[in-house]
C-alpha cells in the first residue's frame, strides 16, 4: 500500500514538474541604454508578465558596444537572445522573427507606418519585424545666448546651410566663440547636410550610390568648411577610420555656436547646460535643392524578436503589448523620446520630468517628423546603410586632412561601396 502511495506521489510530482516546465517561458531580452529606456521597457514587460504569469522576461543590460559588435556574432552562431533592442535596423534583418502571424497587421501598419520598412529586407517584403521604440531625428542646436550677445539675428525657417555658416561665423567672430559649427562624425549626420544639397543616395534603379551631384556638392562644401575653420575640424579630422566622435562637450562648454547632432542630446543638454546659456533647436537647414529637401535623418532604435527563439508566439505577444498606445505612451513619456507611433504622436506626449527647455526641444524635433524627406526614410531603411555611413566618414576625413583630393575621395567612395555591397550580399 505504502509502495503504491509512493509511486502515485512520484507520478503526480513528475506530471506537475512537466506541466510547469512546459508552460513556464523565460524570454531573454538584451538591451543597452543611454537614458532609462531599457528600465522603462522592463517595467512595461513586468506589467505584461503580471497578467501572464507563465511568461517571464529576463533583461540583460549590456553596453551599447555589445549590441553593435557582440550581438551579430551571437545571432550568427545561433546563441542570441529571444529579443533585443537594436540600432542596425536593416543590417540584422536576416535574424528577425516575422511577427505578422501573431499580431494585428493593420494596427501595426497604421501605427508605425514607414518605420516598419527599416526592419524589412526591401520594398517587396511585407513582414512586421520590430517596434521603433526610440525615434530620433538629426538636427541643429544653437547657442542662443551667443547670437544675442553678437546682436545677430537667428536665421529663420528656410535658411540654408550657407546662411547658417555665414551667421555662425559672424557670431563666433563677434563673441570670440571658438567654433562656428560642428557636426557629429558619422555619415548619418552628414546626410542631414547632403539631402538639402540634393543627394539622392540611390540611383534610378534603386542601387545605392555615394557620388550623385548633390552628394558631391555637399561633400565639397563640408570639406571646405572643415579646412577654413567654419566647422570644428577636431571632430572629423581628429580621428581615424570610421570612429564616432561628437562635439557635445564643446557645445555644453559654450565654445560652439551651432551643433548639428540630434534629438538624443536633448536630455544631456537640459541637465548639463542648465542655466549657463540659452539653447534651442533650429528648423532643418535647407540648401540648393530647394524647400522640399530641408530634412534631417530619422533613426533610433527598436525592439525585435529573433527567428532562433523557441517561443515566437510569446515574443510576438510581448512586443504587441509594448506597441499598444497606452504602453507606448508611457515608454516615450518616461524615456523622453520622440514617438514613432502615429497615434501617440497625434495625441501628444507629456514628458515626465523634462525641463521646459527639454520639452520645447523635443516638441521642435517632433514637429520635423512629418517633413522628413522620402530619401531620408529610404536611406535609414537601407540594410547596408552602416557601410555607407562608414565609407562617407573615412573618405571625407581623408579629404579634409589632405590625404586624398576631393575627386579621389569620391571615386574611392564609389569603389568602397561596390566592394561593401558585394561582400554583404
Amino acid at each position, binding site marked *: 500500500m505504502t509502495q503504491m502511495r509512493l509511486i502515485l506521489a512520484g507520478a503526480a510530482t513528475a506530471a506537475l514538474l512537466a506541466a510547469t516546465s512546459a508552460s513556464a517561458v523565460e524570454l531573454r531580452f538584451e538591451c543597452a541604454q543611454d537614458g532609462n529606456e531599457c528600465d522603462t521597457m522592463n517595467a512595461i514587460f513586468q506589467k505584461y508578465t503580471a497578467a501572464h504569469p507563465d511568461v517571464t522576461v529576463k533583461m540583460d543590460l549590456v553596453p551599447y558596444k555589445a549590441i553593435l*559588435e557582440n550581438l*551579430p*556574432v551571437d545571432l*550568427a*552562431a545561433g546563441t542570441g537572445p529571444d529579443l533585443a533592442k537594436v540600432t*542596425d535596423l536593416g*543590417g540584422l534583418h536576416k535574424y528577425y522573427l516575422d511577427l505578422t502571424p501573431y499580431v494585428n497587421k493593420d494596427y501595426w501598419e497604421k501605427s508605425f507606418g514607414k518605420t516598419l520598412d527599416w526592419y524589412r529586407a526591401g520594398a517587396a517584403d511585407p513582414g512586421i519585424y520590430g517596434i521603433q521604440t526610440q525615434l530620433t531625428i538629426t538636427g541643429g542646436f544653437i547657442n542662443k545666448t551667443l547670437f544675442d550677445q553678437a546682436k545677430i539675428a537667428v536665421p529663420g525657417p528656410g535658411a540654408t546651410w550657407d546662411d547658417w555658416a555665414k551667421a555662425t561665423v559672424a557670431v563666433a567672430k563677434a563673441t570670440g566663440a571658438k567654433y562656428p559649427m560642428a557636426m557629429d562624425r558619422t555619415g548619418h549626420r552628414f546626410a542631414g547636410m547632403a539631402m538639402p544639397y540634393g543627394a539622392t543616395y540611390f540611383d534610378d534603379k534603386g542601387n545605392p550610390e555615394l557620388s550623385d551631384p548633390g552628394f558631391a556638392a555637399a561633400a565639397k562644401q563640408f570639406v571646405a568648411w572643415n579646412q577654413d575653420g567654419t566647422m570644428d*575640424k*577636431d571632430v572629423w*579630422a*581628429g*580621428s*581615424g*577610420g*570610421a*570612429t564616432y566622435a561628437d562635439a557635445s562637450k564643446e557645445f555644453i562648454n559654450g565654445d560652439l555656436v551651432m551643433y548639428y547632432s540630434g534629438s538624443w542630446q536633448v536630455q544631456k543638454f537640459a541637465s548639463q547646460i542648465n542655466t549657463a546659456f540659452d539653447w534651442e533647436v533650429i528648423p532643418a537647414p535647407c540648401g540648393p535643392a530647394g524647400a522640399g529637401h530641408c530634412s534631417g535623418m530619422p533613426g533610433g532604435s527598436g525592439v525585435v524578436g529573433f527567428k532562433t527563439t523557441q517561443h515566437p508566439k510569446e515574443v510576438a505577444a510581448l512586443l504587441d503589448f509594448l506597441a499598444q498606445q497606452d504602453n507606448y505612451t508611457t515608454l516615450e513619456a518616461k524615456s523622453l523620446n520622440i514617438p514613432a507611433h502615429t497615434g501617440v504622436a497625434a495625441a501628444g506626449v507629456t514628458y515626465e520630468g523634462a525641463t521646459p527647455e527639454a520639452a520645447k526641444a523635443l516638441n521642435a524635433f517632433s514637429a520635423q517628423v512629418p517633413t522628413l524627406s522620402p530619401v531620408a526614410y529610404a536611406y535609414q531603411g537601407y540594410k*547596408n546603410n*552602416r*557601410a555607407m*555611413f*562608414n565609407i562617407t566618414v*573615412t573618405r571625407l*576625413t*581623408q579629404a*579634409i*586632412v*589632405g*590625404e*586624398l583630393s576631393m575627386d*579621389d575621395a569620391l571615386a*574611392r567612395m564609389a569603389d568602397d561601396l561596390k566592394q*561593401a555591397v558585394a*561582400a*554583404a550580399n
Partner: protein
Amino acid sequence: MLKLITPLMQIVDVPMRALQRLLGPRRLAWAFLAPNLILFGLFAFLPVLVNIAYALTGSDQILLRDRPFVGVRNFTDLSQCASYLDANSCKIDVFWRAVHNTAWFIVLQVGFMVGFSLLTALILNRKIVARGFFRAVFFFPVLLSPVVVALIWKWILQDQGALNAVLEHFGYPTVNWLLNPSWAFGWAVFLSCWAHMGFYTLILLAGLQAIPRDVYEAAQMDAASPWRVFHRITLPLLMPTMVVVLVLALIKGVQTFDEVYAFTGGGPGSATTLVIQYIYQTGFAGAPRLFGLASAASIMVALVLVVLTAVQLWITRRNANG
C-alpha cells in the same frame, strides 16, 4: 611537508604504473604532454588554421560553412598596386597606408627607442646620485596600461590640453598637435618610445653590468679616452644584448596597436593607422565585416613576424653557443 607529499605520491603512483605498463616508458611522455598539446592545439594551432580558412573565403558571414570559397582573391586584392610606394595607386589604399605608417613607425620608434635606451642605460650604469630612484622612474611607464599611457598623453596634447596651456601661458602660439598628420605621427612615436623604453633600458643595463670590470681597468691603465672605451669595449661587448633588444623592439613595433589606437584612433585621416588597427577595423569595427580581407592581412603580418622571430632565435642560439 614530506608527510603530506608521500601519501599523495603513493596515490598517483598506482595509475602511473598502470599507464607505464600500458604505453611503455617511451610513449608515456606523450601522456604527460597531452594536456598541454591539446590546449596548445585548441587555442593556438586551431585559430591559425581557422584564420587561413577565413582568408580563403569571402562575404560578411561569420560561420565558415556560409562563406563562399574565393581562393587567394583577398591576398590579390591586398597586393594589387601600381606602385607599392604610392598607397593611392593600390586597390586597398588604406591597407598600404597602414603598411607605410607601420614601416615608418618601426624605423623611427625602434631607432629612437633603442638609442635612448642605450643612453639611459649607460647613464644609469654610472655611479650617479639617486641611481635607484632614476632606474625606477625610467621603468615606471612600462607598468602602465597602454590605454592609460595613451589617455595621459592625449590630455597633455589635445587642443585644450596641458602643453598648449603652458605655451599659452608663456605667450607662444598653440598648436593642435593631434590634428596635424606629421605632428600626430611624431607624438605617436614619442609616446611609444616613452612607454616601452624602460623595459629595453633594463635589458641593456643588465648587459652592461655583465661586461667584466677588468677590461675597463685595462683600458684605464692604457689611458683610453671615454669615447674609445665606449666604441672599442662597451659597444662590441654589448652587441649581443643590443641585437636581441633590436629584434624584440622590431617585433613589438609591428604588433603596435592599443596605445596608438587609444591615442589618435588612427587619425587624423589615416596618418597614424598601423597595420594591426587596419586588421581590427576591417574585421570587427567596419560594416560589412570583411573577415576574409582582415584574415589575409593578418597572415601577411604573421609572415613578417615569423621572419623576425626566426632572426631572433638564430641570434639567441648563436650567442648561446658563443
